[in-house]
């Protein structure tokens, strides 16, 4: 029998992606890797949006939101990379644990 993808399959994939992103966010110290983790989480959300739209709703709302999210992610990446670059210029390092000069 031919395996038909259902909503659950998509949701499992997106969950896996989300957990991977979260894992990266929590465990890594490197700022760029964190950015990548965030991208993973956003994409997990995108998969959810598209999947729910495909299986439950009738319009294109999910798709539209997914495209919004992609745009937002692009913007975010641009801004975040700029900040990371600035930090690197300041500290010659982008380990987030050491960016605590605002704490003191």
């Amino acid at each position, binding site marked *: 029998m031919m395996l038909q993808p259902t909503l659950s399959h998509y949701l499992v994939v997106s969950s896996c992606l989300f957990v991977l992103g*979260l894992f990266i966010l*929590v465990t890594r110290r490197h700022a760029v890797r964190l950015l990548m983790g965030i991208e993973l989480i956003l994409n997990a959300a995108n998969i959810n949006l598209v999947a729910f739209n495909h299986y439950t709703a009738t319009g294109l709302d999910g798709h539209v939101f997914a495209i919004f999210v992609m745009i937002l992610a692009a913007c975010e990446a641009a801004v975040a990379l700029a900040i990371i670059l600035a930090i690197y210029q300041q500290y010659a390092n982008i380990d*987030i644990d050491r960016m*605590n000069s605002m*704490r003191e």
Partner: protein
Amino acid sequence: MHSVVEICLIILFLPLISSTALIFFNKRLPRGGDLLATACIGIPFCLAWYVFYRVIAVGHDPQFLITGAMQWFTIGPGNAGWGFHIDNLTAVMLVVVTTVSFCVHVYSIGYMRGEDYYGRYFSYLSLFSFSMLLLVLCDNLLLLYVSWELVGLSSYLLIGFFFRKHSAADACKKAFITTRVGDVGMFIGLLMIYRQTHTFNYIEVFRGVQEAVQSGAWSETTWTIAGILLFCGAIGKSAQFPLHVWLPDAMEGPTPVSALIHAATMVAAGVYLVGRLYPLFSPDALLFIAYTGLITAFFAATIAITQFDIKRVLAYSTISQLGYMMTALGVGGFAAGLCHLMTHAAFKSLLFLCSGSVIHAAHTQDMREMGSLHKKMPVTFWTMLIGAAAISGVPLFSGFYSKDAILASALGFGMEHPNHRIIFIGLLIGAGITGFYMFRLIFMTFFRAPADDHRYRHAHESPRIMTGPLVVLAILSAGAGWFALGEHGWFERLVVPYSVGTAGVAPAAVEADGHSAHNIAMILSIVMAGAGILISAVFYYWKTCSAERWAKALGPIYRLVYNKYYIDELYKKTAVGGTLIAMRILAVFDRVVIDGLVNFSAYFVRAWSYISGAFDLHVVDGAVNGLAWGTRLVGTISTLFQSGVVQNYIMKVVAIVAFILLFQNILTTFL
């Protein structure tokens, strides 16, 4: 007759004005104001004689009476008023009081010269005269009581005049407190009468009491008790037997004061009271009065024999004579008692003023240190001799007539009631003793060889201002009885108890007996007085017998009498000691119960404040501190979350979200 009331107003208020003026301004007035005070008693003195003359001029009317009253205030169902009650007795008393008071004022100018508080002394004298005149003039029991207490107050002030002397300060307290004891009884009697009659006015009271007795509202016993209670006041003021102790001590006052208070006026107030309120006394009460007087007369006379202080002899003699007056009133010799009051006022103030003159000269009061003064002080000697003759009852002197009348009434009473013959016998022996101790005084003071040369050489006659009053009083002492009771006998007809009809005793019957007994009484009294004088001459003039040997032979009796029957000691043991014990008990009560209560409440408050302090410290402060501690704990815990490491935050968010989801799942699964 209004003018008499107006004159009496002047008589009454002049001394009050001078007293008030002197107490405030005596330092600014010339000579300490003594002339003002003397003038303010001198004018009443003249006016009193004028009133007396008017009373006689009205003409032997026994019921002569002027009253004038004003409303004062209302108590319950009755009224109290200001008012005058002027009858023959009042007129006589006015003369007695003002005359003696005037003589004493004049004499004091000489006697008190140079003393401290000279002006104040005259102020007190005037206050005393005012009180005594009010006592004599007032028309109701309440005013009588007020003036009675005013007399007590001024006597207190005068006895304690030398207040720096410890004995004088003690004596004035003793006099005041002792008389207060009697006054309590008098006040109760007064209230009893007021409760029955709802009035204080003499005439209405007499009528009310008479009606109460007749209608049976008052039993005979109640009537007697009321009378005896009223008489208690007289016992205190007139120094009758149980309360006589203050009078000898009161000799600590200046001698003119002794003459004024303790001879002529204040002590006479008790006799006057009995005379004035005569219809209020039941026959039994009168018998009580008679026996009180008899005991007093006899026992004070025996003490007077043994004393050596010249003033104390006179003091005991005064007590004895007051006893005579009381007895006379008690046995129904109304006129006799009051006449003796009048003559006694004259000769006893004379004797006191003479003794003052002697003390002034000899600078001692002890008769053993005097002697042979008759050559040095002729005026004092002769006047004092007249006084002594008068008091001893030597014929033709005033005391003879009044004492004779008293003895006659007592004999008449004894004939009427044979059970009570002892009254006459006691008085008769007392009359002999009177002669004895008076002439003992005269012989010891004026005749014996001088005991102290130094004193003798410095003795001198007193100045005229002191001898003048002596002469005046000597004339009165010699003559008063003659024109009072003697051949005219107008006093007896003039001064009769206020009659309210048939109630009360009928002294007339007794007096009638008295007249028939008069001759026997007269002869016996002359014999007794002569015997007394003769024996004293044997002892102290010719010295045929030695007084010391007799005193030794009579050992215990002599000591008993010399120590005044130990009555002072008895009072010290019982009254004073009892009071002290009571006070000690009260002090213990104070210390244990009252202090205990106070201390307990203090202890309780302390314990309470300790508890509330602990509550403050632990609960309130604990709450505040606990709050702070809790806040800090929360803060400490929450700082753990604020690690500042972003990844930690994420972890926590994830953990919390995971927890919430899990929890929700568990809840939805099991509920």
